[in-house]
C-alpha cells in the first residue's frame, strides 16, 4: 500500500454553489424537455442535492464514482461542465458522452465518473469490479456507488453486496432513499423495516444519514472512506432524501400528497446549508444571490452551447461499437 493521499477540504460556500448549479441545471433541463429539445427519459435530482455534493466533498478526485440513471448531478458534482451535460441531453457531439448516451448515460473518464447506468441495480456489480481493481492494484482509492431505494430488491444488488463483503472490497454503497421506486413506495416494495438491514444481511456495516443535510452526508462519507483506505472493506449508507419532482418527466407523482412534498420542501438541502453558513457568518444574502445568479447564467449559457453544437456525424455511426472502430 502506498502512502495515503489526503482528502482536500472543500470550501462549503463552493459546495453550496455546486448545489445551486445542480438545482438550476435540473430546472432548465425540465424546461428544455418540455420544449422537446431533450428526448428519451429524463430523471431529475431536485431535492436530493445534498447527497451527491456531500459525498463528493468527502472523497478525492481520483476516487471512483458510479451511479444509476438519475445521474446529471453526479457528473456536475464531479466537475463535468454544465455545457457538456446540457449538450448530452440535447444529443450533441459536444456532450459528455458525445450525444450517444443521453440523460441516463453521463460518463466522464477524466473525472472518474463511470456512468450513468439505466438498468436498475445492474451497475452495482460494476462498482464492485472497480473496487476489486483498486484492491488488485493495492491502491488506496475508494469507489462510491450510488443507487436508489428501488435497486435493493434486484438480484444484481444482492450478488454484488455478497461479493464485496466476501472479497473485502473498498466500496461505499450509498442508497439514495427518496422513498419511491418510480411510483411504488418503499413500504410497498421492501420487506424490511429499514433499508440498512439489507447490508447487515451481508455483514456490511450500515448507517442512516440525513440526506437533506450536506454536512452530515459529508462527514459520514469521510469517516467511512477514511476507514476503508486504512483497511479495504465495503460499507453501506442509507441517505434519507426526497425528490420534489416525479420519477421521470412523464410522472405527475400523484401517488403522494401535497402535504408530504411541502414537508420536505421546508427541509430543503440548499436552504438548510445556506442557513447554516449565514448563521455562522460565512455567507451574506448578497453573496447567496450572486451565487444563484451565476448558476442560472452558467445553465443558460449551457443551453445556448448545446443549441449551437453539432449533431454527431452520421459517418461516425460505426466508430463507437468496437474499440478499434472496425465494422464486424
Amino acid at each position, binding site marked *: 500500500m502506498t502512502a495515503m493521499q489526503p482528502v482536500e477540504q472543500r470550501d462549503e460556500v463552493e459546495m453550496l454553489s455546486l448545489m445551486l448549479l445542480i438545482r438550476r441545471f435540473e430546472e432548465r433541463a425540465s424546461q428544455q424537455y418540455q420544449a422537446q429539445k431533450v428526448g428519451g427519459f429524463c430523471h431529475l435530482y431536485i431535492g436530493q442535492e445534498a447527497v451527491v455534493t456531500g459525498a463528493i466533498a468527502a472523497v478525492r478526485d481520483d476516487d471512483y464514482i458510479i451511479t444509476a440513471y438519475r445521474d446529471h448531478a453526479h457528473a456536475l458534482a464531479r466537475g463535468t461542465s454544465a455545457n457538456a451535460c446540457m449538450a448530452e441531453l440535447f444529443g450533441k457531439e459536444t456532450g459528455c458522452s458525445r450525444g450517444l448516451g443521453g440523460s441516463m448515460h453521463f460518463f466522464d473518464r477524466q473525472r472518474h465518473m463511470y*456512468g450513468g447506468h439505466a438498468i436498475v441495480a445492474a*451497475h452495482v456489480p460494476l462498482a464492485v*469490479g472497480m473496487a476489486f481493481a483498486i484492491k488488485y492494484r493495492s491502491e488506496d482509492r475508494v469507489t462510491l456507488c450510488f443507487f436508489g431505494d428501488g435497486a435493493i430488491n434486484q438480484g444484481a444488488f444482492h450478488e*454484488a453486496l*455478497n*461479493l464485496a463483503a466476501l472479497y473485502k472490497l473498498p466500496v461505499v454503497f450509498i442508497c439514495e432513499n427518496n422513498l419511491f421506486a418510480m411510483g411504488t413506495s418503499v413500504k410497498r416494495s421492501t420487506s424490511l423495516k429499514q433499508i440498512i438491514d439489507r447490508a447487515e444481511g451481508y455483514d456490511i456495516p450500515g448507517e442512516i444519514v440525513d440526506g437533506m443535510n450536506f454536512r452530515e452526508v459529508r462527514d459520514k462519507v469521510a469517516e467511512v472512506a477514511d476507514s476503508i483506505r486504512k483497511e479495504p472493506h465495503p460499507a453501506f449508507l442509507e441517505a434519507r432524501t426526497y425528490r420534489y419532482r416525479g420519477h421521470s418527466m412523464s410522472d405527475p407523482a400523484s401517488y403522494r400528497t401535497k402535504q408530504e412534498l411541502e414537508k420536505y420542501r421546508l427541509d430543503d438541502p440548499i436552504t438548510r446549508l445556506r442557513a447554516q453558513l449565514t448563521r455562522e457568518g460565512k455567507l451574506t444574502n448578497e453573496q447567496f444571490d450572486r451565487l444563484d445568479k451565476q448558476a442560472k447564467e452558467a445553465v443558460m449559457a449551457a443551453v445556448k452551447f448545446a443549441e449551437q453544437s453539432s449533431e454527431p456525424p452520421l459517418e461516425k455511426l460505426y466508430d463507437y461499437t*468496437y474499440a478499434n472502430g472496425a465494422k*464486424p
Partner: protein
Amino acid sequence: MREITYRQALNEALAEELERDPNVFLMGEEVAEYQGAYKVSHGLLERFGPERIIDTPISENGFAGLGVGAAMVGLRPIIEFMTFSFSLVAFDQVVNNAPNMYTMSGGQFNIPIVFRGPNGPAHQLGATHSHATENFYASVPGLKVCAPATPRDAKGLLKTAVRDNNPVLVLEAELLYSSKGMVEPPDEELLIPLGKADVKREGSDVSVICYSQTVPVALKVAAQLEEEDISAEVLDLRSIKPLDEKAIYDSVTKTHRVVIVEQDHPFCGVGAEVCYRIQENIFDELDAPIIRVSQEDVPMPYNERLEHAVLPNAEKLTAAVKKVCYA
C-alpha cells in the same frame, strides 16, 4: 508441433496470457481450488496465486458484472462460466453492460473482457444445460463471438481474445475438451485472428460450413462421402462474429453447393445469417438451394435416442449433402 488435448491447449493459453500481462486475471466458479469444473484451469492457482485465480460463489450476474467493472478501470478479466447455459443468469451483464459501454460513453470506456466456458449440447444434460448460445450473443453489436473446434484453434483464439480490447466470448465445448490435435510448442507464440475461417478439408463438389462441435461431424461425413465420389470441402468458421465472408464466398465460388451445419436452433440461427449473406452477395454462384442442418426446434430432451434425433448429426448431414449434390 506436438499432440495435446483441447483442454490442455486452453490451459496453456490461459497460463501464457496470465504470465504475459499482470492485468489479466481468471474468475469463476471452481476455477481455483477445485482446478476447474472441467479442469481447464488446472494448476493455475498454484502458479499464479489466489489474487489472480479467483473462486466465486454461484453468482453469475454478480461476478460477470464485477468483471465488466474491473475492465472499465483497466484490468483484463477472463470470466469463466461453468457452462454458457449459466451465462443466461448473467445475460444483462453480457448483453447490456459489456457491449453497450463503449457506445453509450461516447467511446470513453471500452471493455476488454473474455467470457469463456463450454457452450452447446453435451451428453444427456437435458434442456437447461444444453443451450447453444452463439446466435443469441452474435446478434448483439459490440460483442465478438468465436467457437473453436480444435486444440490449435482453441489456444490461438483464446490468446487473441484476451488481447482484444472488446468483449469477446470464447465458446468452448464440453465434448471437445478431451479431443486431441497438433499444436505448436509452447515457446512458439500462437495467435489466431478473430474473423478468420479455416478450410479443414479441401473439396470441390460442396461446401460444408460448420463450427465448434459440428466440425468433427462434418469431417467424418466428408471422409465417408469421398468413398461415394462426393468431394466435400469443410469450412470451419471458427469465429461467428466477426464472420469471415471472404472465405465463405471463396469456397462457394469453387463448389457452387452449400450445406450449413450449425449446433444452434434453426429459427434465427447462425446458418440463417450465413445463408442470407451468400444469396445476397453471390447468388449466381449457387447451383442448388442451400440446406441448413441444425438442432430440431424443441427444448433438448434427456432421453439419449431423442437427444440424438434433435442434434445436427452425421446422418442428417449426409442426407443434406446428397440432396444439394442431387446424388
